[in-house]
Every structure is written in C-alpha cells, then in structure tokens.
C-alpha cells in the first residue's frame, strides 16, 4: 500500500477534489423521482388494501420496501443536493426531503441536524448521534439496532438538546409534532377497525426498516466504528445483497468525503477516485 507523504498530500487532495467536483453537477433526477414513486406507492397501498383490491400480505411486503427506501432521497435533501440552500427554488429540495420521509414519518429537520453532527463527529463515542450502533460483529450490530429502537435509547433527542441552536430547537418541535400525529393516526386506525392495516402497512414495516436502515446506513460503512479522521472513519464494502440491496452504502466512503455528490453517482465517483483512495490507504473492503 502506498504511503502518502506530507509534501504529496496537497497535490493529492487537489486532484481528489477536481475529480469529485465532476460528479456534483446537474440535477439528480433519479433521486428526485424516487420519492415521487416510492411515497406515492406507499400512500396508494392504503385504499387498495382497505378496499380489498390488494391482499394485506402483499401490501405488507411492498410497504416494507417502501419504508426502507424512503430515507435515501431525504438524505440527499438533507445535504441540499437537489437545490442549494439560499437558492430561489430551495423549497423544491425541502419538498422532496419531507415527502420522501412520509412513510417513515420522520421530520427532515431532525434528520438533517443530527446527520450533520454525524458527519462532524463520525465514530466519536460521545458526539456521533449514530454511535449507539457501534458493534464489532454483524450479530452485535443487529442487536444494537433492536436496542436503538427502544424508548429513549436513540441519541437524536439528546443531540438536539445538546446543540440547543434555533435549528435544533425547531427540529425538536417538528419531532414532537410528527410523533404526536403518527400516534394519532395509528390510534385512529386501530380504534376504527383498521388495526391490521395499521400493523402491516406501517408499524411493522417501520420496525423492520429501522433495523435494516440502522444496520446498512449507520453501521456497515463505519464498522467497527473505531476509525477516526477523513480517510479512516468510513469504508467501502461488498454487500451480500449488492449495492442496491444495501441502499447504495457500498460506496458510502465517497459520501463522507464529498457529501454533495448525489447517492446515485457515488459508484461512478468511487471508480474515478479509487486510485487516490488506495494511495490514501483507505479501507476499500475488497470492492
């Protein structure tokens, strides 16, 4: 493995940046269309299942895929990739982010504030909001994902309180309101004779997707969550289920180096940056 000396680092970084910037141009249409299809499909499951057109078991399978796939477009929106912050049509970015998250019923604002903290303090045991997923084995990570889903075991609420910024306070209010609305909808469905639809189109898919998302998005690219620093805190890896099955996380190292490259362009950016990443001694996980 090549060793990069200090005198080479500046040139290498400039080359790296120049390559990365070629993947930051243009509107990421795939990521924008994704929530339009995914969230709309999830919403349409309700009338189809309730009217008996679609069997509940099939609705459950589709809903689980929908909820699991709902986070990623919002992730691009969190980074203002669709329309940059301050631009005239930035509301489009926000609309995509919020609409994408409807199946998860999580506020874009909460995810954005806490995700930026994750980028700032990746793998920091005290400050990384995703650190509760730290585990050295697959079994340990799955167990941590279950633990994280228990009341007051996640670290997002405490991160918002610790920050105490206007954006964090606003996000906390959004979180509270969304949680109240979600409970109200579940309660209404359950008490009005639609308890099975509530369980199989929303509640259970949420639980399953939460384990999946925490495993692939929080743990797998950072495992065992001990590495620190730009080229050490995130790794590439080969997933058993491929790049699509792992929600594009095989190339998550690119996202941590250049967060404004859209998810759909990370594989190409990885291939272009691979020689530099190898020179940097990054863990490329056999990809």
């Amino acid at each position: 493995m090549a060793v990069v000396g200090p005198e080479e680092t500046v040139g290498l970084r400039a080359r790296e940046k120049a390559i990365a910037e070629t993947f930051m141009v243009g509107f990421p249409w795939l990521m924008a269309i994704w929530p339009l299809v995914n969230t709309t499909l999830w919403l349409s499951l309700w009338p189809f299942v309730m009217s008996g057109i679609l069997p509940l078991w099939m609705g459950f399978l589709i809903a689980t895929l929908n909820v699991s796939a709902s986070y990623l477009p919002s992730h691009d929106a969190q980074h203002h990739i669709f329309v940059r912050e301050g631009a005239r049509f930035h509301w489009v970015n926000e609309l995509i982010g919020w609409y994408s998250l409807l199946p998860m019923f999580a506020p874009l604002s909460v995810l954005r504030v806490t995700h930026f903290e994750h980028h700032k303090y990746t793998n920091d045991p005290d400050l990384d909001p995703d650190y509760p997923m730290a585990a050295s084995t697959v079994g340990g990570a799955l167990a941590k994902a279950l633990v994280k889903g228990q009341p007051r075991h996640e670290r997002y609420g405490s991160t918002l309180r610790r920050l105490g910024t206007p954006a964090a306070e606003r996000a906390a209010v959004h979180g509270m309101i969304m949680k109240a609305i979600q409970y109200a909808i579940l309660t209404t469905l359950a008490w009005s004779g639609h308890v099975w639809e509530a369980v199989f189109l929303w509640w259970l898919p949420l639980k399953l997707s939460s384990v999946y998302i925490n495993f692939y998005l929080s743990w797998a690219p950072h495992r065992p969550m001990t590495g620190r620093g730009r080229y050490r805190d995130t790794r590439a890896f080969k997933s058993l289920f491929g790049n699509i099955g792992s929600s594009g996380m095989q190339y998550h190292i690119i996202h941590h180096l250049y967060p404004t490259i859209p998810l759909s362009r990370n594989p190409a950016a990885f291939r272009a940056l691979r020689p530099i990443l190898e020179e940097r001694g990054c863990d490329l996980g056999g990809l």
Partner: protein
Amino acid sequence: MAQTIGIGFALGPLLFGIGFLAPLIATLCNSFGISSPLGLLPIAFGLIIGAGLGLLAIIRKTWLW
C-alpha cells in the same frame, strides 16, 4: 419548550399502549377466540395490558426485556 417535549416523549409508550396496543390486543383476542380473564370485554383487557406494557416500557426504557 424542551421540558414539554421531554414529557411528551416520556409518555409516548403509555399513549402507544392505550391508543394502539389496546385495540390490537382486543382484535387478537377476537380473531383467535381467546376469552379475556374475569369476564372482561376484550377491549378492557387490551386497555389493561396495553397500558401496563406502556408503563413498564417507560420505567424500564424498553419494550423487549
């Protein structure tokens, strides 16, 4: 504000137990022909169990163990 939000989140499991688990337990009882103890209505049984589980989840900070 932060305190109000904290209280709201803290009561979440209880609200979930009453609002969602209670009718779910009642539906399960009805679907599988399980009779409630002490001649309780299925929904009354669901409310007792749902609220109880919610309270336990608040105290123990977990639904699972």
